[in-house]
């Protein structure tokens, strides 16, 4: 079996715990993300999804446990540390600047310069290439973000996370508040990220979205792992029962029929 394991997962959490005052937000969390894989992170409100993401993104530091990056233990103290490693996070509120155009937003904080002056032409060229490779359709890269629709803003935010050539992209509820067509666009984009060999952590409450694009579904319940399901050998009902705790213990149930799942 050991030979079947490929190189180290690009990102792995081993026994991560986080405590806020009297609240044990995370307890012994295990999570692995491989290259070219979409891991959905699901759980009810307060299950610890956001805390976990903030831990990976460097906003919070874990109290216990280790974060491994490509097999090596790393410490992430600040958001910049995570960015340098290659973790890009798209938060739910997108954090785009409405008054800047698409190019300005894509390159915000890492502008390309030529003789110390902004190289607008090169940035515009690269923006168009990036948006084209992701098949993102935007009226123009020179219009302010304010005139884009919600779905277009979401894909711009995701595209922005790719400017720094990350290896893992964390998407926090990317399809919340989007319509049918826009959700489809974002899910297409997630699949393209996977196709480009990125590891994707997708946080979502929408089971249909999760079942559509995820390779694995990691369930959190009350700050603990409550099973990691392969999308192909599980059902929506099984995941929901793990989320809500309707089963006594989803992990043991799966282990009981573990052999038949891999056949």
């Amino acid at each position, binding site marked *: 079996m050991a030979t079947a394991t490929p190189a180290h997962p690009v990102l792995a959490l081993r026994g991560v715990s986080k405590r806020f005052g009297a609240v044990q937000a995370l307890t012994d969390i295990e999570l692995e993300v491989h290259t070219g894989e979409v891991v959905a992170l699901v759980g009810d409100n307060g299950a610890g999804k956001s805390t976990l993401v903030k831990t990976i993104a460097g906003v919070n530091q874990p109290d216990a446990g280790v974060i491994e990056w490509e097999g090596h233990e790393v410490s992430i103290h600040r958001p910049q540390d995570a960015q340098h490693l290659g973790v890009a996070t798209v938060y739910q509120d997108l*954090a785009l*600047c409405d008054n800047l155009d698409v190019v300005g937003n894509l390159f915000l904080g890492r502008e390309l310069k030529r003789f*110390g002056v902004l190289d607008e032409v090169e940035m515009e060229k690269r923006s168009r290439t990036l948006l084209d490779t992701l098949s993102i359709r935007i009226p123009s890269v020179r219009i302010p973000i304010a005139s884009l629709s919600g779905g277009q803003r979401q894909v711009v935010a995701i595209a922005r996370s790719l400017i720094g050539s990350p290896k893992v992209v964390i998407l926090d509820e990317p399809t919340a508040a989007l319509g049918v067509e826009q959700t489809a666009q974002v899910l297409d984009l997630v699949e393209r990220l996977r196709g480009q060999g990125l590891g994707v952590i997708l946080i979502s409450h929408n089971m249909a979205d999760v079942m559509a694009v995820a390779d694995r579904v990691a369930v959190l319940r009350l700050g603990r792992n409550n099973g990691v399901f392969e999308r192909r050998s599980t059902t929506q009902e099984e995941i929901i029962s793990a989320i809500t705790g309707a089963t006594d213990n989803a992990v043991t149930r799966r282990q009981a029929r573990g052999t038949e799942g891999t056949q």
Partner: protein
Amino acid sequence: MTDDPQAPKQEGRYEEGRAHHPLPEDSMPVGGVNAPVPVAPDATPAVDPRLIVRQEGIAGYLGEFRRRVSSGELGSLPVVLALIVIWAVFGSLNSSFLSAQNLSNLSQQIVGTGMIAIGVVFVLLLGEIDLSVGSVSGLCAAIFAVLDVTHGVNQWVALICAILSGTMIGLLHGFFFARVGVPAFVVTLAGNLGWNGLMLQVLGSSGTVNLSGKDIVSRLYSTIYGQQFAAYGLATAAVLLFLGAALLDTRRRRAAGVPYRPVTDIALRTAVLAIVAYLAAYTLNQYKGLPLALLVFLIFIVVLDFVLRRTSYGRQVFALGGNIEGARRAGINVPWIRMSVFMICSTMAAIGGLFLAAQIQSASQTSGGGNLLMNAIAAAVIGGTSLFGGRGSTWSALLGALVIGSILSGMNIQGLSNAFQFMITGAVLLAAVVIDSLARRTQKAAGRA
């Protein structure tokens, strides 16, 4: 791995399945909403069919113009209209208003307020306000006058001391705003009173320090280049610089395969600039010539406009005006940008104060008082810089200062009392802010804000 049924086992089982048994679903889904959209490798970038594409030529220009106005992107349109109306009204009331002499004097008189307004533009871009610019300008003028005249310090040293005092004051404001977290208007309101007090202290018992008239600041203000060549040369240089930059940019864009301005577009813009520049040069030459103060003002505008639009510092200032949290997450040092903007604002206030002192040839207890603060902020807002942050340009300082200066000059010629002047200036400021608010509401409705 062993067969020990521990939690990591789950991952191991998964990896095994992944490596040995590629499932049919490993290929992309072929139907439904999640099927990837096939894209030919050399397909032209798809343009959203709903997008309104501007036609080329004059007709396209007019259409674009109409669309922008109706969606609230007024830019400098209201201020240009206002300027035309003001000049028409005062010109018809008294022919001396539009004389070369009055317009030349006007171009010098607006410099002090205009310089302060440039600094205010920076602060407004952050969506903040600096209420201390009047007092700071008075204080820095007093520092220069006292050092130069009373203490006989070298005039250049005195000039640099005065300007650096402004920078330090801005640093102090910025520190309390960005690091301590006090609202900017409270910090600068306190500064307004405090720096005014310090100015009175610096001026001492006499209360007024007269400038010699031969010092560097006075000469900066009163020097006028009389040769015909100066004004026309400046106009020519400006037009050529604009044309050259536009053509160079278009060539680079064409080479890089990104959209570029058509040649007719550039020609039209250059022609408009040339008409304005040569008309101004002609008017100035009709009287005495090109005032040095105006030249310095224009240089400040152009350089700082370049900083705002073409450097990453300027981009960060705009980003802060648009979304502070977004800027922070993009790795921008928010406190530093805030402090530096307040430093720029107070520095510009100091420079403006020096020009104002040169204008009246003294630093007195009333320096930086009266309606100077209102005029400077009004100039920035009237010129088209939004009070809500993230939109504006240093050119609005010139346009706004022209409007304010024209009104004051016209009312002086008409012999209106201060009472009327204050009321009318107040009304103009209110009108400018109303236009800004309405434009923003229209922009929201049109999806542009």
